[in-house]
């Protein structure tokens, strides 16, 4: 019973953060939301008892992808219509 | 039985501190006050959660467990040290970046701008 509650909470968080990535017009906010998504995905892998996949997700999702996204966002210009978000 | 009481008290203190930190994030008006509440209270809460884990591991080991419990406790201590250091340095970096990005604190004395004008 308790396992189902924990897994349900993680899945709700995954859906919410994925919706935020889709909703935000600002690229930096979307990158931060993607960081939250990869954290929660790694927790889900841990619950499903796959620690090696979780450690790969931590290395790639938390460290590498955020850094590469930020290096890419640095080369763009800010959208004037995205100031509301 | 005594060890269980210690574990429950440590976990309760840790969860209470984490809850207060989240309330600070949701309620405070400014970036700097939010950062203050978040960093201090979540670090305090994680320290007490890890103390609860270490108390559980020690009680299991003293009750006749094998050496795997000691390894678990030592790794928890290492993770706790890494967490405490990285939280403090990350909070400093975030507040410095927010000041560089042009967000001024509300309603307090801003000594740094006075120093930088000279």
């Amino acid at each position, binding site marked *: 019973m*308790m396992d189902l509650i924990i897994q349900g*909470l*993680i899945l*709700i*968080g995954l859906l*919410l*953060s994925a919706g*935020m990535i889709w909703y935000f017009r*600002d690229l*930096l906010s979307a990158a*931060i*939301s993607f960081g939250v998504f990869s*954290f*929660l995905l790694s*927790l889900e892998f*841990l*619950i499903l*008892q796959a*620690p090696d996949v*979780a*450690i790969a997700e*931590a*290395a790639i999702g*938390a460290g590498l992808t*955020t*850094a590469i996204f930020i290096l890419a966002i*640095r080369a763009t210009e800010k959208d004037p219509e995205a100031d509301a978000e | 039985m005594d060890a269980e009481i210690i574990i429950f008290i440590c976990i309760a203190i*840790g969860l209470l501190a*984490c*809850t207060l930190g*989240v309330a600070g*994030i*949701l309620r405070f008006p400014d*970036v700097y006050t*939010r*950062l203050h509440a*978040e960093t201090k209270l*979540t*670090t305090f*809460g*994680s320290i007490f*959660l*890890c103390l609860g*884990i270490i108390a*559980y591991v020690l009680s299991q080991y003293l009750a006749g467990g094998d050496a*795997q419990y000691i*390894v*678990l406790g030592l790794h*928890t201590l290492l*993770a706790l040290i*890494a*967490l405490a250091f*990285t*939280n403090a340095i*990350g909070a400093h970096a975030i507040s*410095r*970046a*927010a000041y*560089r*990005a042009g967000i001024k604190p509300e309603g307090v004395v801003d000594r740094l701008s006075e120093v930088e004008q000279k």
Partner: protein
Amino acid sequence: MIDPWQTALSVLFILILLVMIRLFKGPTAPDRVVALDAINTFTVCAILIFGVAFQETVYVDVAIVYAVLSFVGTLYLAKLVGRDI
């Protein structure tokens, strides 16, 4: 007799869902970085509690890797927000 670890996990995930409100609302980018930092800390605590609840030492190693790598991500985000790179 309730299990303390699963109760602590449920409370931590509810706290993660509450911090995501600030991630959604936050008016500026540093607010979202603060929310990401809080979610980092809660995730590392949750992985440590998973390791004790399942009696696995490998999960605690995942937590150590996670704490260090999320720090790298936070520093990259702070560098971009502060216009240092």
